[in-house]
């Protein structure tokens, strides 16, 4: 798993990813174990990733799972069932709640954004 700063850099330096998300202005919640993070997105760029401090801070939808599960997803070659967030949802390894319309409308963008925390260096 990368640091939050490196994760943001990975996302915002990926021109193709930003182009794919260029219609997207949203805040969503990403849960790792007990911690929630708010992703603020403007035209596909991630402006910030901040830990959720009070419950009234909320995203349009929330996608969440245990830390061990996300760490498997972010392995260079993830094992089966952990290789894609929809495979993880199918297996009930992670969960999703809230208004899913923008998530589904931009499904590949969100898949790639979350997967971009994968450290591809040996």
């Amino acid at each position, binding site marked *: 798993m990368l640091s939050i700063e490196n994760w943001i850099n990975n996302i915002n330096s990926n021109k193709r990813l930003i182009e794919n998300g260029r219609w997207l202005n949203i805040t969503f919640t990403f849960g790792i174990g007990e911690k929630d993070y708010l992703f603020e997105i403007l035209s596909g760029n991630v402006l910030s990733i901040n830990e959720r401090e009070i419950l009234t801070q909320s995203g349009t939808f929330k996608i969440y799972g245990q830390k061990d599960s996300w760490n498997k997803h972010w392995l260079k*070659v*993830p094992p*089966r*069932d952990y*290789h*894609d*967030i*929809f*495979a993880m*949802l*199918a*297996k009930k390894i992670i969960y999703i709640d809230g208004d899913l*319309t923008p998530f*589904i*409308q931009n*499904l*590949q963008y969100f*898949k790639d954004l979350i997967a971009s925390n994968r450290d591809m260096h040996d």
Partner: protein
Amino acid sequence: MTDLYFEDIIGRYFNLNLKKDNYRIYVEEAGQGTPLLCLHTAGSDGRQFRHILNDKRITNNYRVIVFDLPWHGKSNPPEGYELKDYKLTTNLYKEIIMSFCKQYKLIDPVIMGCSMGGRVVLHLALEHCDYFRAVIALEGSDKLEPYYDLDWLHRPDVHGGLVQAAFVSSQIAPQSPNNFKHETLWHYMQGGPGVFKGDLYFYWHDGDFDDRSNLIDTSKCPVYLLSGEYDCSCTPERTLETAKRIKGSKAIIIPGIGHFPMSENPDLFKTYIYPILDEIIK
């Protein structure tokens, strides 16, 4: 200047009559020998089998035939399609395949289908065991559980092609070559509105078969089941459960491949399908 190179595949159209409907069907074939009819996955088309059609190791012994189902690829929907939503039922699917076989005058064919094609060949193994020489179910099982709401696939505020590709990208193994992965996804981006959803009606609902699959007589019609390790739809567990119910069937789980073995990683897939095709005609 290099010579013009043509692949061995010949593509043609023909008209298939089924009850009151006439379907203009696109079909490709290559090779000679035992007919090998290939059925594509839900929401895609026959291009998925181009590596099989172009493989001389296979076409030296098999006449490989691949057609696009009506509504898919270059096959038209019937006249009046605009008046109702497309929904593939088990009976319609079987009738299309058997009508194709009859009008194409196939004798003693082997049939190989992937995903929903892998499901329907199990139905055919039970009902037409004297006609088919063998069935090969790729990513096929007799029962599945839906894991997303099909309405997302056909609504005006979601791009059908993009969301279909994004959904099925979860079923491709990370080890599969990037070019073949994206070729496989491209086919999904080109599907007609509501067609993938209509196919999944068969695959996830109408086509359940776990209450009858144990009746298949594999001594009359051998059954082969091959599924990919990374298939999160027809999982290895589902395939092995199906194989347990079909006495005498042979099941293989292919490591490092997903739901589209013939198109996402054809070289790896061939190492598993060659021995099966050899065994069938031995």
